[in-house]
């Protein structure tokens, strides 16, 4: 008897484990099947970034009040495929390889979309839009640049994009109270910038008798902003030619090296890769001139005001150098954000989805919410939120559904990320700074250097992309070494090495290609200045 009962028990145990795994394994697929086929609408699948930050009571990125709203009000049934934000490209590659990729692929990285195009995974949209679209077609007519930027070298349109208002991204702020205390002016030239930064670091602007302040930061993007002041971009337009320049590297790095050796910047700036140390320095009132994203400055501005209520901050223009006067990086009005899978089962239905999402009423719903639930309409036509906190919970995660929506049609009720009608004194102070930034940094007279915005460089083949990226990385790594090495490795040596490695890794071919491309496209492409002056109304 013993033998048999053991066998039975063990077998029973395994059966239970297997059955459990079946049950647990099976339920996901069943749920999905039930969700399909509501109301007999056509099915499309759409990617959606999963950032892991949707409030629990709202559901998931694949199923929440907004996905239900889309399916309830839209012409098609959209099935949302969550794509983990940080591994989006791996996930997409996997889905494409196995034929499971969504019909509509939304991705911010245009290089990745280009690589999908190169692998023939994308559907040309020209005929589809001509025959089946109304809304997106109208948008293309209104904003022809969307077509220019979405067209690939084979002359067909593949990408869809969004249209916003241009926004400040990078910024440069200075401690006005320190300037006042030391009797200095906001620096206008690069030499004045050095003098002021030096004074901030060495003349004890916070008055605590200890040398514990920094003049300026060089961490994270700050080093690129100083490059921008010297027009130190890889490719610039000179004498109507698109050239790879090397003569701006030296002045830019001489300046950085001088800052480093003068003890004006944090000696450990190279290890502050994500800029956190600089954030702390600024927030605790130890940093005089701060170069960072305006959103980062805004966040730390609040902390600064609570550590030191008397702190006063002003936005400043990039100082002038021998190469002219430039501006920080900004968010241009256009961005290509999506494409249609070449194997989409029903491209017409995908187009219907795109059209529905770019319809002004949909755009408004996704910006302000549902009338009576999230906002009320004032008599002057403006939208008044009913409860900010509820809206944050219910709508804080909707941005990724809006990736290709024309947001320029919306009236914004925030300035610099804060409610325009806020009565909080710190908000008011920041709003004044943000308005100043808009004026300084969205000025076509002082554009960001480079022939066009990084998002709109022409697509390169794989080898040339490698050359480009290696050239960029080598330049930054080699030159960073020259900042911190004193006489052991001078800036001149650095520039020599940068040049050498550029030509050793196929730089000449890329230069020739770019030169030719510029001659062929200089009348049709979107260049930097145009990005500042574009108007859609």
């Amino acid at each position, binding site marked *: 008897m013993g033998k048999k009962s053991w066998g039975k028990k063990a077998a029973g145990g395994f059966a239970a484990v297997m059955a459990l*795994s079946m049950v*647990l394994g099976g339920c*996901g697929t069943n749920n999905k099947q039930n969700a399909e086929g509501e109301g007999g609408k056509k099915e499309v699948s759409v990617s959606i970034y999963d950032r892991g930050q949707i409030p629990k009571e709202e559901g998931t990125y694949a199923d929440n009040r907004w996905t239900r709203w889309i399916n309830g009000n839209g012409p098609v049934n959209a099935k949302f495929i969550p794509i983990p934000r940080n*591994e989006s490209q791996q996930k997409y590659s996997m889905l494409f390889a196995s034929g499971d990729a969504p019909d509509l692929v939304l991705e911010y990285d245009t290089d990745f979309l280009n690589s999908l195009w190169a692998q023939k995974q994308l559907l040309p949209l020209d005929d589809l839009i001509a025959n089946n679209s109304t809304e997106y077609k109208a948008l293309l007519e209104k904003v022809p640049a969307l077509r220019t930027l979405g067209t690939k070298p084979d002359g067909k349109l593949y990408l869809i994009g969004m249209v916003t208002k241009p926004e400040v991204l990078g910024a440069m702020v200075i401690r006005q109270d320190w300037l006042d205390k030391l009797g200095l002016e906001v620096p206008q030239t690069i030499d004045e910038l050095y003098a002021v930064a030096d004074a901030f670091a060495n003349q004890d602007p916070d008055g605590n008798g200890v040398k514990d302040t920094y003049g300026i930061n060089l961490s994270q993007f700050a080093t690129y902003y100083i490059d921008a002041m010297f027009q130190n971009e890889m490719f610039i337009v000179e004498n109507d030619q698109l050239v790879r320049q090397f003569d701006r590297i030296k002045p830019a790095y001489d300046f950085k090296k001088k800052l480093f050796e003068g003890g004006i910047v944090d000696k450990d700036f190279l290890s502050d890769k*994500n800029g956190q140390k600089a*954030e702390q320095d600024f927030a605790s009132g130890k940093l005089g001139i701060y170069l960072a994203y305006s959103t980062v400055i805004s966040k730390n501005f609040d902390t600064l005001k609570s550590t030191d209520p008397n702190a006063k901050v002003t936005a400043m223009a990039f100082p002038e150098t021998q190469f002219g006067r430039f501006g920080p990086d900004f968010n241009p009005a256009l961005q290509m954000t999506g494409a249609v899978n070449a194997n989409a089962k029903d491209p017409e239905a995908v187009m219907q989805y795109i059209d529905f999402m770019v319809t002004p009423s949909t755009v408004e719903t996704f910006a302000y919410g549902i009338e009576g639930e999230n906002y009320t309409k004032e008599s002057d036509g403006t939208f008044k939120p009913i409860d900010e906190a509820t809206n944050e919970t219910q709508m804080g995660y909707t*941005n*990724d559904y809006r990736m290709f929506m024309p947001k320029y049609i919306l009236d914004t009720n925030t300035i610099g990320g804060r409610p325009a009608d806020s009565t909080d004194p710190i908000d008011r102070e920041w709003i004044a700074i943000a308005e100043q930034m808009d004026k300084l940094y969205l000025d076509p007279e002082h554009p960001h250097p480079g022939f066009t915005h990084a998002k709109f460089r022409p697509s390169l083949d794989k080898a040339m992309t490698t050359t480009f990226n290696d050239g960029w990385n080598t330049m930054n790594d080699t030159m960073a070494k020259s900042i911190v090495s004193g006489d052991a490795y001078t800036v001149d040596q650095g520039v020599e090495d940068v040049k050498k490695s550029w030509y050793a890794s196929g730089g000449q071919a890329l230069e020739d290609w770019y030169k030719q491309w510029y001659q062929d496209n200089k009348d049709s492409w979107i260049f930097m200045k145009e990005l500042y002056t574009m108007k859609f109304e």
Partner: protein
Amino acid sequence: MKSTSGEKVFYGVNYFILVLAALSCLLPIVHILALSLSGNEAITLGKVSLWPQDFTWTAYSKLIEDTNIVGAFRNSVVITLVGTGLNMAFTILAAYPLSRKHFYARRFLTLAIVFTMLFTAGLIPNYLLAKSLGLVGNYGALWLPGLVSVYNLLVLRSFFENIPEELEDAARIDGSGEWRIILQIVLPLSIPVIATIALFYGVAHWNSFFNVLIYINDPERFNLSVLVQNMIQSQSLMSELAMLDPDAFRKLAPESIRSAGIIVMILPMLLVYPFLQKYFVKGMLIGSVKG
């Protein structure tokens, strides 16, 4: 017994180095724990090192309210418990017959199994296989493809081989069959190695990240690694993509919440390890002496 001064110095240096090594593992965890219990402003100002400043539990309550961490925790537990259970069941069932000398074709089968260690298919073939088996989208894709790890199988097999055959003979004379022998004789004698291997499998399942990312599409079914990774990686991603994806920055979870996520993620393993440690050392050792 008295130790010479040379020995004292030797032990002193040893302890010093080992303490340093231990601290280098411990301090980051203490720092993360402190961050998770501190106010945001203190964190921004860089005041938090090893002791929480402005002590608060908000990060944890926010984590529970605002993210699906409870569900993810439950999923991690299911993945780990069921996965480890299946792994152990099948590894034992494979290792036991291979360890019996009277088992037919045992050499050939062992070789055939070892042979599979030489090759692994790439990611995409694996995915296509899982898809054709209908495993994509459910945890089967996490449990079945790696059901038996050959390495663990071999460790277990050599352990079983070391159990004296006389015990088995005695049991057989008393009338027990194969099931009773394995369950009542072999397994109780193998607890150290069973615990060790279960821990190997368990940790792998608990930390399983990439497979969940690739095979599971329903966010309700993500585990802790994916959820926490989603929160913490935004920071490193930011420097490259913030320009292309401004939202990545705006929606960045505060550092305290990210730290709380990390703590929730590592805590269960921290709690399990001490209880299994005594087996762990023994199991590793015994498996390794005779191959």
